């Protein structure tokens, strides 16, 4: 019996879809069977980020309305032989085409076959959000170090706390620009975590490579050299229960003296 994790944020454009794709990828790399579910009906793009757009035949709404079997709609990602699947959202209908009860049934069905179901939630707190949360056991809230994103994350955490089926949500802080945080131009990690008072499960630095990779339809987590990739892999390991220390943001000064200190192991 698998576990369903919803990735949500309230505000749009903070990186829900990227986070979903990369956590899913990282979990698959760890040898887990993962199914990504895109619930952003009408504005799907998880398939684009994963580079699976061309292979969609059926979608979520087709499954819900009984036009096909669930395994017919799942798109297999060949890069992970049999470890990663995607259930794409419909592009032609809208969010009201699905009811929370139907989503719950669907996710429960998927949980029989997969270790992790990652549900990509649309922005907002309306029908789409309700559908996405309905079947989830756990939640990851994505925010960026901006006041508006943190405000919306706060709202969404409040709503998630009311959901009986969802455990206390975990926080991902995305798009961190270490130099701005250092100068105090951006909210820092501690500030956000104490403000939202939920557990932090990962921080991801702002990285041009992420955008580049999404545009090529390859989640950044596949590239082991990028900092963001390691961040996503760390999040996946934490989901699996390992305790991984938070990634160092490059705030340390790179002077000769600190290098000498480092050499002698002085902190």
């Amino acid at each position, binding site marked *: 019996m698998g576990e369903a994790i919803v990735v949500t944020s309230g505000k749009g454009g903070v990186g829900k879809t990227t986070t979903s794709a990369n956590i899913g990828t990282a979990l698959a790399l760890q040898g887990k069977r993962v199914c990504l579910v895109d619930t952003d009906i009408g504005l799907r793009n998880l398939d684009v980020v994963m580079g699976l757009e061309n292979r969609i035949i059926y979608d979520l709404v087709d499954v819900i309305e009984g036009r096909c079997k669930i395994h017919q709609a799942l798109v297999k990602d060949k890069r992970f032989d049999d470890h990663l699947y995607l259930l794409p959202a419909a592009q032609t209908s809208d969010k009201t085409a699905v009811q929370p009860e139907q989503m719950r049934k669907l996710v429960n069905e998927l949980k029989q076959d997969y270790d992790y179901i990652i549900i990509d939630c649309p922005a907002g707190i309306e029908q789409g959000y309700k559908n996405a949360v309905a079947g989830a056991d756990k939640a990851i809230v994505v925010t960026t170090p901006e006041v508006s994103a943190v*405000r*919306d994350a*706060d*709202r969404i*955490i*409040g*709503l998630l*706390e009311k959901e009986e089926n969802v455990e206390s949500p975990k926080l991902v802080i995305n798009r961190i620009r270490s130099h701005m945080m250092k100068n105090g131009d951006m909210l820092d990690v501690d500030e956000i975590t104490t*403000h*939202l*008072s939920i557990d932090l499960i990962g921080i991801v630095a702002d990285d041009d490579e992420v955008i580049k990779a999404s545009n090529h339809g390859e989640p950044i987590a596949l590239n082991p050299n990028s900092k963001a990739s390691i961040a996503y892999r760390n999040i996946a390991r934490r989901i699996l229960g390992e305790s991984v220390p938070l990634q160092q943001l490059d705030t340390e000064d790179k002077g000769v003296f600190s290098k000498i200190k480092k050499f002698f192991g002085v902190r």
Partner: protein
Amino acid sequence: MKKTQNVTIKGTKDGLTLHLSDTCSYDELKKELDRKLSNSSRVQEEQQLLSVKVKVGNRYLTKEQAEELKDLIRQKRNLIVDDLETNVITKEEAERLRQETEIVPVAKVIRSGQVLEITGDLLLVGDVNPGGTVKATGNIFIMGALKGIAHAGSGGNKEAVIAASVMKPSQLRISDCINRAPEEVPEDENRVMECAYISDNQQIVVDRLQVLMKKRPSLTRFEGGL
């Protein structure tokens, strides 16, 4: 058989007090009061109004009955009822009083969009985040950071206060006074352990917690409830 007196008049330092017995019927009491006030007729010459206190003991008076007694006394000569005291209140009244004076502890973070409404005093163990609202008919004590809106004395109690460990509200309301956060708050300003109350010129003032013992001594209560 010696007739017990249902109405006794006593003079004290503070003026006259009418003691009305609680063992007779209401009608009897009215009659005797009427008689007593009419025949104790050493008519006082001075037409100055005399205020009296009325004590009815363990008798429950409805609003109408209380008014009736007051009228009766007022009609007689130059007496005016200053205070009507009874040892009895109804259950509803008691429950309301209990709720109003009760401290309600809540352990929760009030997040954006959430509203917490309470009858009585609120003791919040947690924060009020921006966009969140707490309301209480009494005082509000917050053991975390207040960054949202707090409304104390929402039923109209101007004596209510708001206290917080970290006072960075977006808005403070006490009774019908509203105070907005200043536009420019110095970043490093240390706003810890502060309180807000309505000052003498009807403005909400934020000050150190310690001034409350002088401004609102009635906050100290040793037992809860009534």
